[in-house]
């Protein structure tokens, strides 16, 4: 059965989704099956990750048809890293989900809710693992449809509207993606990513391929919320149920960034993307604007969830900045940030979920005094917040350090200064929350507000500690990100 692992990686979650949907009378059982499938999926991921950690790859022929005729699943250090992010976050968010979801979702919809969660999860796994361009599109559709439904389940009435906004933008994004893939097929006659890479150089000097590149990049940028195509994200993240925000913020945009990296490095190749089309000169201004403007916007938010959502847009800016440096070190910093930001932001949104659980909302007014009433929750928020700012000994610092090195290596010292300035902005908006929670008197001083239940606190702290662990012991994540960068660049790099 061992050689079937790449298929099982997708199949487990894909099976659980319809099964869970049938359990509308047993929400607890639905939760238990979802949890079990997420853990089983993580176990498979770890096995795959271990098998390709040395930089090799593992190809699996779906339906027993050799690529490029059949669909190939190919695991290598780059997508195993993404699978690890998805697997870890969903395995940790599920124990957290039970009480949070029971509080926020009507009892008779819980099973459907978990079914949608599993679909979103399976879609993201499929996007990451597949080696076929059209298969990527199919799984994008699965995860997108499920995500729209999940976001619409937020308790605020505006959740439905923000899900609709996301639906419109997301549909444009996947349509562009499909147009790009169609153009590539017209010019090469193949859909397999690695076969495309082999056949594209022959036809790369054509309008069709250049247009395909443009459509793919714009379509994926909509999905990954690159400034200024990010407008759907703040609303979607602020109004979604807590558990959905945790999961999507940590995984959805990361997977889209992976797809972008896969296309520009593995399929089109470094020379075409950066030397012929000079896309760094498009990406870098957008990345810088995307870091500064949303960070400033975050400072002016009154709702903690919304504030963190804007910060997510800014973090996407960091990841794209690394790519736009067009260097191995920049790419590696981006890949590293995928993971470090995923655990940091998931920890922050989990802490926010704890606050929502007890306080019903997270406007700055509402969380006043939370520092005394919910000390563990707020302590987790502060530590994860430090990681978001990039304070030494946290995961966030490890990425910022490498990103800074990469910008200096490329000789862009004003960009390096801007990076430091944006950390200052991050410190400002995190401080706003801390100030409200610790130094303001609660308005309803008499109300009995207790610490969040252990079922929520333990997963929150697990991720919070992870931001410290991966901040102090950076060898693992840095090593994995290096291997992933080498795989994407397709050559050995002298680090």
């Amino acid at each position: 059965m061992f050689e079937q692992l790449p298929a099982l990686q997708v199949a487990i979650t894909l099976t659980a989704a319809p099964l869970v949907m049938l359990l509308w009378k047993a929400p607890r059982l639905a939760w238990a099956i979802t949890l079990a499938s997420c853990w089983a999926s993580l176990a498979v991921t770890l096995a795959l990750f271990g098998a390709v950690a040395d930089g090799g790859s593992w190809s699996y022929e779906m339906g027993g048809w050799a690529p490029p005729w059949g669909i190939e699943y190919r695991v290598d250090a780059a997508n195993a890293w993404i699978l690890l992010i998805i697997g870890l976050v969903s395995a940790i968010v599920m124990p957290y989900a039970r009480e949070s979801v029971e509080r926020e979702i009507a009892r008779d919809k819980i099973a459907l809710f978990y079914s949608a969660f599993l679909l979103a999860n399976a879609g993201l796994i499929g996007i990451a693992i597949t080696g076929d361009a059209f298969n990527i599109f199919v799984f994008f559709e699965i995860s997108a449809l499920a995500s729209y439904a999940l976001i619409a389940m937020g308790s605020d009435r505006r959740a439905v509207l923000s899900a609709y906004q996301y639906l419109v933008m997301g549909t444009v994004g996947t349509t562009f993606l499909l147009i790009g893939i169609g153009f590539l097929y017209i010019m090469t006659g193949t859909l397999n990513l690695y076969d495309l890479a082999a056949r594209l150089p022959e036809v790369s000097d054509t309008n069709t391929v250049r247009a395909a590149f443009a459509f793919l990049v714009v379509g994926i940028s909509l999905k990954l919320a690159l400034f200024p195509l990010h407008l759907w994200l703040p609303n979607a993240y602020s109004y979604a149920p807590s558990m959905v925000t945790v999961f999507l913020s940590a995984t959805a945009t990361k997977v889209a960034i992976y797809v972008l990296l896969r296309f520009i490095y593995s399929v089109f190749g470094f020379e075409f993307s950066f030397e012929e089309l000079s896309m760094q000169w498009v990406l870098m201004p957008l990345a810088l604007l995307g870091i500064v403007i949303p960070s400033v916007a975050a400072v002016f938010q009154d709702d903690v969830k919304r504030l963190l959502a804007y910060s997510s847009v800014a973090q996407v800016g960091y990841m794209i900045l690394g790519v736009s440096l067009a260097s191995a070190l920049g790419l590696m910093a981006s890949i590293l940030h995928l993971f470090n930001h995923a655990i940091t932001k998931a920890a922050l949104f989990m802490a926010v979920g704890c606050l929502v659980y007890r306080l019903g909302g997270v406007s700055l007014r509402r969380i006043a005094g939370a520092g005394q009433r919910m000390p563990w929750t707020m302590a987790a928020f502060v530590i994860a917040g430090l990681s978001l700012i990039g304070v030494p000994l946290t995961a966030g610092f490890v990425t910022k350090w490498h990103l800074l090195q990469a910008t200096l290596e490329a000789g862009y010292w004003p960009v390096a200064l801007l990076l430091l300035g944006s950390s200052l902005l991050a410190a400002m908006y995190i401080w706003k929350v801390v100030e409200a929670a610790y130094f303001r008197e609660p308005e309803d001083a008499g109300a009995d507000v207790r610490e969040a239940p252990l079922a929520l606190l333990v997963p929150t702290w697990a991720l919070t500690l992870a931001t410290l662990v991966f901040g102090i012991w950076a060898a693992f994540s840095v090593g994995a990100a290096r291997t992933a960068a080498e795989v994407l660049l397709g050559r050995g790099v002298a680090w």
Partner: protein
Amino acid sequence: MNQYIVLRVVSRLLIPVILIFALYVQFHGEYSPGGGFQAGIMFTAAFVVYSLLFGLEEVQRAFPPVAAHVLSAGGALLYIAVGYATMLLGGNFLEYKVLLPNDQAGETFGIIVIELGVGITVAAVALSLYYSFAGRFVDREAGD
């Protein structure tokens, strides 16, 4: 719509034909255009026509919403089950040729089963969607 006697009579005659044509498209998909997707939609179309003329309640007695919900999961599970079966028989996921001793027969058999899964899910989902929309409308009428 009780007064539209012509419509009622014609649709009574038409609905069985639509259903049989849907089954034809489903099971003849290997030889002629068609397959589970198209057949599923046609199958549902028959129920929708019936519902437009005789009311949602009537059609839900014939095909209850809960059955539609269960079948929409069931078709997908049938498809995935074929994948697990091929894995247990020593092939890759969805490698139908291992299902039967003869490679070609295995492929054909696998395709027929998964197309059935596709048809079931598509028909059940299309009907569920129709129920969800029409059910709200009936609810609102009753509330007014």
